[in-house]
């Protein structure tokens, strides 16, 4: 219940993050049954949650609090985990990271039945938050602590509406419907329930007025409708993201005066992840960026006399682990690729120049030539490029790119040095590598390019199947002859291990470890590059074949064949493809209104998963302007469509706009989705 105001709004009467944290510590030290299962962190599988978990784990181990981190991939997993947790009697603190905001936690389906010893902290960047968790009081409700970022202050109206509705469940149907405010397993039925709720008072209108005469303390029907509509509006706006979980934990660390460079770096990664994956708008990014910029200058004082050229950042000493601010280009991974490749694979440039056509590629080489880069230069890896070209890159781009319509090519970001152990790595690259690890480190075969394989280099024709870096690095050597044979042997060995631990959990731990191990992170960069290549391949095929079907209010793409089908059966990768398509086609397509609100570019992508005979469906709302975001209304739309056509489906992740649906039901579902757009 308690929503924690952020520290700037805190006062003696209103606890904030610091107090919540010290309560956790006090509990831990006081309790006689303390063990490693007393404090448990449940972490969602995305980069922001990973960073926040790492930061929190660091803070807890500095305070000698034993804790456990458990990755959870979806609502189903959370249900199973909850049942298991009910059996732990030494558990006194549960921290949910990037999950659970939408769930009605005080209800019996979730944590209502747990002992009064348990406190549940919710650190989540997903919005909207469940009103029951935020405002519910009483014995059970007090144990749910939502770490809020100040938005709940502005929800006075919703609070009153919710409290009024909770206080007056009068008729039988209405009491049934208001107690169904919970979110049952398998579907986020909040809005479908509330839409049912909305129908109920209208039907029972006349019976209500009769009862009104009997009980004068009853709310008038109008009031009830008003409250109901306020609550429904809160949930029906769509889903969006707010302050990242890692920012919340960083604020906690600042209050405790224990912020240091490592924590700051992880917080920066969380923020960059939100921006790069189009979860927050450029304005929100800038706001947090300026905060982090101040922190960087505070914690990383440059020794006087170093001339800081933002382009040529090198480590000043072997122990130099400092963070510096730079202007980052919008080309993905551009320090690790050739310049041509980086521009080719960035969705912004792809859209403006039309990369999927041969004409577009010529324009790209034309742009590079105009800037004074010869073709051999652009085909060199960035690290081998001439130094003066590197320094001039930004100047030239600013001068010449606007002619091609590329205006917002840079955004302010950060870069970290790693002493003499490895070259400096920018925040965006680190985020790309980590999310590639999370998505596809294991569970799918993907080939990465070996350096030197192009243009008849020594490893020409040899890729290497990507394997998570292990202790015996002999397995990671590139095999130039017969990749498949080596791959098969490895698969045989690895297949046994794989059955025990699910692939997403191994990916999670691989990514978790890579956050602090610079060498695994750099290895993962090649994985990320292959992923981008696959996305481009698939995206250009879709655009070339004109596979995008335009419905009245949204656009649909169905992938049922292709070389990378297994790769795109993962929701994370599929969402990336969707965002790429949006960025690429942003200027060419008119915006549409989906159900309400502003115009946007709604895209639905469905990919066939052959092994389970289901389609993974992902819905993404793109904004019309680059750098802006829209609230994602697909969560509710999917549920409505699913109900209408009774499709067999399941929600397997915390993201409400991702759905897994049976193969045969896809057509019906898509048709029902069109109806949703019209008649909502």
């Amino acid at each position, binding site marked *: 219940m308690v929503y924690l105001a952020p520290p700037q709004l805190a006062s003696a009467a209103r606890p904030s993050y610091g107090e919540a944290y010290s309560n956790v510590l006090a509990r831990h030290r006081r309790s006689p049954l303390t063990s490693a299962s007393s404090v448990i962190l449940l972490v969602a599988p995305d980069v922001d949650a990973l960073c926040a978990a790492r930061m929190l784990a660091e803070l807890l*181990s*500095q*305070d*000698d609090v034993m804790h456990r981190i458990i990755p959870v991939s979806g609502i189903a997993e959370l249900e199973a985990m909850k049942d298991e947790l009910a059996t732990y009697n030494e558990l006194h603190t549960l921290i949910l990271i990037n999950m659970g905001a939408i769930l009605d936690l005080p209800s019996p389906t979730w944590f209502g039945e747990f002992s009064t010893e348990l406190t549940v902290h919710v650190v989540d960047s997903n919005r909207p938050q469940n009103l029951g968790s935020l405002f519910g009081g009483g014995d059970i409700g007090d144990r749910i602590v939502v770490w809020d970022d100040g938005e709940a202050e502005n929800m006075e109206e919703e609070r009153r509406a919710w409290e009024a509705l909770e206080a007056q469940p009068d008729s039988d149907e209405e009491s049934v419907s208001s107690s169904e405010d919970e979110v049952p397993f398998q579907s986020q039925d909040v809005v479908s329930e509330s839409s049912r709720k909305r129908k109920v008072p209208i039907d029972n209108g006349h019976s209500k007025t009769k009862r009104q005469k009997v009980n004068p303390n009853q709310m008038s029907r109008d009031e009830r409708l008003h409250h109901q509509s306020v609550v429904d509006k809160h949930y029906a706006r769509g889903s969006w993201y707010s302050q990242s979980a890692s920012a919340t934990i960083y604020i906690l660390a600042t209050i405790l005066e*224990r912020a*240091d460079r490592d924590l700051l770096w992880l917080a920066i990664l969380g923020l960059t992840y939100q921006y790069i994956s189009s979860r927050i708008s450029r304005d929100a990014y800038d706001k947090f960026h300026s905060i982090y910029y101040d922190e960087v200058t505070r914690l990383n004082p440059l020794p006087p006399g170093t001339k800081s050229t933002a382009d040529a950042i090198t480590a000043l*000493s*072997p*122990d130099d682990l400092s963070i510096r601010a730079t202007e980052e280009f919008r080309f993905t991974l551009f320090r690790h690729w050739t310049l041509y490749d980086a521009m080719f694979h960035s969705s912004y440039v792809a859209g403006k120049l039309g990369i999927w056509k041969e004409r577009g590629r010529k324009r790209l080489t034309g742009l590079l030539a105009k800037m004074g880069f010869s073709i051999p230069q652009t085909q060199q890896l960035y690290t081998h490029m001439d130094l003066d070209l590197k320094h001039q890159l930004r100047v030239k781009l600013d001068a010449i790119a606007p002619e091609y319509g590329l205006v917002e090519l840079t955004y302010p970001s950060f870069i970290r040095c790693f002493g003499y152990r490895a070259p400096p790595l920018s925040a965006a690259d680190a985020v790309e590598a980590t999310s590639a690890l999370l998505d596809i480190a294991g569970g799918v075969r993907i080939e990465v390019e070996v350096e030197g394989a192009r243009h008849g280099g020594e490893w020409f024709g040899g890729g290497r199947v990507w394997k998570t870096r292990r202790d015996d690095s002999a397995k990671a050597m590139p095999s130039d002859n017969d990749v498949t044979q080596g791959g098969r042997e490895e698969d045989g060995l690895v297949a046994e291990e794989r059955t025990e631990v699910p692939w997403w959990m191994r990916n999670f731990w691989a990514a978790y470890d890579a956050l602090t191990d610079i060498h695994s992170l750099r290895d993962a960069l090649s994985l990320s590059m292959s992923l981008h290549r696959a996305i481009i391949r698939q995206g250009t095929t879709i655009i070339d074949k004109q596979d995008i079907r335009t419905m009245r209010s949204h656009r649909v793409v169905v992938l049922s064949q292709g070389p990378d089908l297994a790769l795109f059966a993962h929701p994370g990768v599929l969402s990336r493809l969707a965002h790429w398509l949006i960025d690429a086609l942003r200027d060419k397509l008119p915006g549409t209104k989906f159900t309400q609100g502003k115009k946007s570019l709604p895209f639905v992508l469905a990919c066939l998963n052959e092994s389970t005979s289901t389609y993974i469906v992902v819905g993404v709302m793109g904004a019309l302007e680059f750098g802006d975001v829209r609230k994602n209304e697909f969560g509710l739309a999917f549920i409505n469509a699913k109900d209408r056509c009774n499709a067999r489906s399941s929600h397997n992740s915390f993201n409400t706009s991702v759905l897994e649906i049976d193969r045969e039901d896809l057509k019906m579902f898509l048709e029902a989705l069109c109806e949703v757009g019209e008649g909502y």
Partner: protein
Amino acid sequence: MALPQPLRTSVSPQELELIASEQLVEILPLITMEKTAFISGAYGPLRPPAKCRIPLWMAVNLKVKKKCHIIPPDWLNVEFLQERLSRETSYPEFSQMPFRFAEIAKAILDAAPDDVQNAEKVRSLLKDLREARQAKSREGLAKLDHSELSLPNLCSMEINELRPFFIHAMGVLTQLSREEQNGAAEEP
């Protein structure tokens, strides 16, 4: 250490580091703590910002948890080590160094490199010192005889390095000299 008998030739460096960590070192605490009794003695109270002397093991532990700043001992800085290094390279004898300087320096540089001024220079000076002294101990071993080996100012890690060799070597030399004496006694 729990090594099997055949491998137990001498004390391991980690054990030496553990023994050296008993020494007191000065810290700047960031937390408050009352005078607490440990097995080796009572330390504290910690009252920031007043400095306090606590054992090295405790200082390293607190530093790792970011609860104190270690103040390096007065020999762990560039000037002192530079001066000793020049003395080392100009005279044939070993120069005077704190007995357990290698272990203490390693512990502090690993846990708190930010508290030591110019940590890389200190590391490189320590490495130079070690190499100079190593060269001298190699030469000194040539003077080994059956009854004594005198190498003044040798430090704990270096003694530990030599120990298995010169114990064994002394044993052999003693045998040889005894046979010589017996031989000499039998001759006439």
